[in-house]
């Protein structure tokens, strides 16, 4: 079992501690409270520069300080109650404090009465991978002939790699995950001019990885956070130093801060479809333009219009009303791109310090209008590497070559 520090306030009173313990055990994590003396609380608050009114939050800071002295702790889970103003401040301070002093992976979450089990599972599973598979994640080069499959919620992607180059690729919308993967594998193999028997190893990632992994008899099955961070580093050849990876897929998104190509802090979206590629698909349909042309259309915009809601339902309703009021299609396309970028910024990017370079991957990275909106918002250039939609597949194809 891997020891992970739980640095929290309010989980016991929220009635959700059992759920964290339960899921942690399933993914091989032993959640522990770092040891600390009450006499250390004042010094810890001084060290962090903030004293809260709530004693539990002050103890939370003391546990964070104490955690740094325990070499058996390999990761940290930060938890405070949703909508607690002081708690959120302390959680953020602790995250920054730890981040400046240690390289261990850290995740944070907000306590709510009915947390979604799948959300907690995804976070803890990613945390466990980052801790236990670190030596594998250090791989920077693909060797031999391998295949990487990313069975996403919206699309299924596959790449065939040979000696660190993509020699074949295929993608298609996910329907039956097994049928979709058979088809993309065939396309990727055809593109590479190879047979299935030429493939030395297969790796899978993505939402459907368990089912698909069994179906294709995968040699490696890993969650998406660590794989996407690796894929972004491989596609940009930026293996050293800090980077921020934004991945917006068909139905969810991720923001990952990585160091030397390995994720160490991440934030997962997925609460709202309005910040996903699906929103842009529906917007394209309403604008009567193919999704592949939406970004180019948005770049022609000269007048700024905003949608009245980020919501998949009400945002699209606002889009229709805006079109009906005579606003040009390109301005509405830009508004749709801005809506996605704004929501990702407000819900995810702003919660972390963005470390350049910023690498944008996932299907939505191909929509130029969204990239442009991010650049305006953050005031920095964003890198969209070639084959950015295959980041997950490239990451897992490379990692499986080291198994």
């Amino acid at each position: 079992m891997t020891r992970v520090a739980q640095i929290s306030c309010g989980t016991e009173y929220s009635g959700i501690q059992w759920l964290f313990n339960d899921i942690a055990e399933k993914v091989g994590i032993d959640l522990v409270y770092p040891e600390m003396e009450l006499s250390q609380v004042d010094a810890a608050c001084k060290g962090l520069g903030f004293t809260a009114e709530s004693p539990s939050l002050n103890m939370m800071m003391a546990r964070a300080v104490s955690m740094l002295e325990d070499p058996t702790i390999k990761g940290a889970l930060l938890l405070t109650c949703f909508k607690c103003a002081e708690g959120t401040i302390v959680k953020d301070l602790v995250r920054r404090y730890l981040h400046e002093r240690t390289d261990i992976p850290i995740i944070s979450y907000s306590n709510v009465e009915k947390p979604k089990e799948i959300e907690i599972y995804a976070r803890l599973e990613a945390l466990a991978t980052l801790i236990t598979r670190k030596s594998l994640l250090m791989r920077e080069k693909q060797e031999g002939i391998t295949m990487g499959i990313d069975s996403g919620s919206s699309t299924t992607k596959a790449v065939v790699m040979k000696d660190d180059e993509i020699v074949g690729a295929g993608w298609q919308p996910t329907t039956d995950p097994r049928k979709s993967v058979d088809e993309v594998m065939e396309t990727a193999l055809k593109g590479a001019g190879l047979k299935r028997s030429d493939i030395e190893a297969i790796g899978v990632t993505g939402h459907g990885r368990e089912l698909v992994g069994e179906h294709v008899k995968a040699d490696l099955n890993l969650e998406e956070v660590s794989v996407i961070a690796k894929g972004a580093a491989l596609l940009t050849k930026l293996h050293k130093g800090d980077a921020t990876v934004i991945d917006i897929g068909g139905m969810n998104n991720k923001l990952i801060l990585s160091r030397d190509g390995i994720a160490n802090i991440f934030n997962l979206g997925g609460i709202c479809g309005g910040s996903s590629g699906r929103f842009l698909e529906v917007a394209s349909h309403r604008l009567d333009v193919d999704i592949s042309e939406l970004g180019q259309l948005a770049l022609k915009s000269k007048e700024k219009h905003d949608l009245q809601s980020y919501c998949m339902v009400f945002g699209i309703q606002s889009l229709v009303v805006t079109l009906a009021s005579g606003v040009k299609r390109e301005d509405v396309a830009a508004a749709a791109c801005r809506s996605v970028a704004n929501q990702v910024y407000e819900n995810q990017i702003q919660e972390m310090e963005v470390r350049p370079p910023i690498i944008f991957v996932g299907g939505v990275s191909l929509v130029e209008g969204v990239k442009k909106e991010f650049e305006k918002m953050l005031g920095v250039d964003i890198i969209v590497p070639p084959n950015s939609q295959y980041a997950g597949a490239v990451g897992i194809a490379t990692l499986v070559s080291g198994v």
Partner: protein
Amino acid sequence: MKVLVYPPNSLILTDLVERGGHEAVALMREIGEHVRDAEIDAPPLNVTEEDLKRALRYVSVEEPAGLKGRIGLLVPLLEEAEASVILSDAPPTFGCMGCAVADEFFKFLIRKKGIPTLEVKYEGGDKLEEAVEAIMAFLARLSQEGKATKSEKKG
């Protein structure tokens, strides 16, 4: 020097900073710019979504809207300040943001910025004279340090 006062809407502290020969960085100017902006229609303070978004550089999206709005208004002051005077535990009539968490957090942001800062406790009565003396002495030191820096640059 641009000296941020806290509470940020304290007329007394603003006056003291100006008497000390410095430029006071206070909330009144920021609010003034907002309410005089004919383009914004969000009375009474003309605080808009943009102000709340600006706060996101320092606070999480989970924070309540009122806290984000307060920090959003204060962010330009923080970024402009070269020094600051913080008067703690002052009565609301002395100047107040009306939110204990925003108050604590903004004081933290000032301290974290690492600019020369004087923190004085409001104790009222005769102690208030001592507080004023401490503030004026701090402002005088800032002037001397400012002159020294200028002459160093010239040299």
